[in-house]
Every structure is written in structure tokens, then in C-alpha cells.
């Protein structure tokens, strides 16, 4: 397995809408600094953002860990939320368990998980109702430019 180039971790606080998206924004900035292809950055940013929003909307707290290697981006979300009863059902576009007040904030239209799946190359979700959810996605990237002097 190739060496990891950049990695980071973020604490995600539930219902903290003021900072929602900040973690994914930083990941996007790192990818831009690294010169990754724009379309891949878009996919990674959207997938990360949707997963980040899910943690913030539905759970009390979670952790985001990312690893960026020359040929892949890996992002893992671990939360202590209510868990997902039926993952297959949750993956259907339009299916939502959002309470009404969330809909009025502009979220909860049931597009989150389908959006992640659409943008990621690999997606793994494991969840225990009452305990929490672990979501991991991987996006493959073309070899990015190495820093001068490294080969």
C-alpha cells in the first residue's frame, strides 16, 4: 500500500450548523493544494460534505478521519448517533427520516446517502441502531504530482 501523504481528523458536533461543512472544506483545500484533478475534488468534497451533514443533523457527535494517498482518498465517519435501521432503504433517493424542522432548514430531502454513493468509488456503511454508524468511502485518483526531489 502506498505511503499516506496527508491525513487529518475532525470532531463533528451535533446540530452545530454554524460550522457544518467546515471539515469537508478543509479537505477540499488540501486536495486543491495537492493539485488533484478538479472533478475528483468535486466528488470528494460532495461525498464528504453529505456525510458530515448527516452526522451533524442526526447525531450528537462524530469523528471524521481522512487519509489522502497518491492514488486514493479515504474518509471515515464514526458517530454515536441513533444508527440506521435499514441501510438499503436509507440508500433510496427521497427516503428520509428527517424531522420536520430539519426540512425547513433546507436539509432532509433524502438525497444524502445516494449522493455519497454516486460520488464515491467504494462505500461501506455499518450501523448498530442505538449505538452508532460507521461510514467509509474511497475515491481513486490518478497519480498526483510528487514534490520536486522525491522519486
Amino acid at each position, binding site marked *: 500500500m502506498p505511503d499516506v501523504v496527508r491525513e487529518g481528523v475532525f470532531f463533528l458536533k451535533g446540530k452545530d*450548523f*454554524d*460550522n*457544518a*461543512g*467546515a471539515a*469537508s*472544506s478543509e479537505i*477540499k483545500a488540501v486536495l486543491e493544494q495537492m493539485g488533484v484533478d478538479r472533478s475528483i475534488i*468535486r466528488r470528494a*468534497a*460532495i461525498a464528504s*460534505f*453529505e456525510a458530515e*451533514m448527516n452526522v451533524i443533523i442526526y447525531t450528537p457527535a462524530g469523528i471524521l478521519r481522512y487519509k489522502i494517498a497518491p492514488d486514493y482518498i479515504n474518509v471515515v465517519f464514526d458517530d454515536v448517533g441513533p444508527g440506521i435501521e435499514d441501510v438499503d432503504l436509507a440508500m433510496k433517493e427521497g427516503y428520509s427520516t428527517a424531522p420536520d424542522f430539519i426540512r425547513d*432548514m*433546507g*436539509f432532509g*430531502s*433524502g*438525497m*444524502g446517502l*445516494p*449522493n455519497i454513493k*454516486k460520488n464515491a468509488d467504494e462505500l461501506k456503511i455499518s450501523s448498530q441502531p442505538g449505538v452508532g454508524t460507521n461510514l467509509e468511502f474511497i475515491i481513486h485518483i490518478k497519480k498526483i504530482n510528487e514534490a520536486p526531489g522525491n522519486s
Partner: protein
Amino acid sequence: MTLNEIKEITEAEVLTNNSDMNIQIDRGCSSDLMSDVLAFSRPGSLLITGLTNETVVRSSEFANMKAILFVRGKKPNTKTIALAEEKKIPILATKLSMFEACGRLYIKGLGSDN
């Protein structure tokens, strides 16, 4: 059309400082739900929305929206405006309804994501 023309057509005010009003925008995307914007929008559009929380600016960043037009007389707070300035996303605000704003822009030639 230019951002300046969009401003004129929708009688909007510009809320961000140092925004380039000459940028060309060819498409409009209207929604109050950000996940759908992320799923369906094409990069480089004008986002037209009535939702003013910070997540709108983040979503615009991820969806590569060129500018945001807030409708229904809604305005974001200063923190949100500051974030938009940092991300170089111009923010406009109009008192018009979303229907009226979209309608006017459409008949003046702004395309859609279709």
C-alpha cells in the same frame, strides 16, 4: 449574462465586498434544499435560494456555484457574508419572490441546468 445584469434584472443589492460584477454566468439553479443542489446542479451556475444559513455558502463552494442570489428579502448574517467573501462567492439579495426572480432571469436569457 454578467453578474451586474443579474443584479439589475432582479433589483438586487450586492452584499459581499470586492466582488467582480463582470463575471459571466450562463445558468441559474434555484432550490432551498442543498443536497439536491449538490446532486443536480452543474458547476458555474447562479444559485438562487431563500435559505440563508452558512451551509448554503459551503454547499455553493462544493457545488462550484459562481454566485448566490438570496430571494424573498432574506439576507444572511455577517459571518455567512464573510465566509462567502473568503471563498470568493459573490452574494446578491433581492426582495423579489423566487418565482419572480427566476422568471425574469429566464426570459432575459439565463439558461438552466437542464
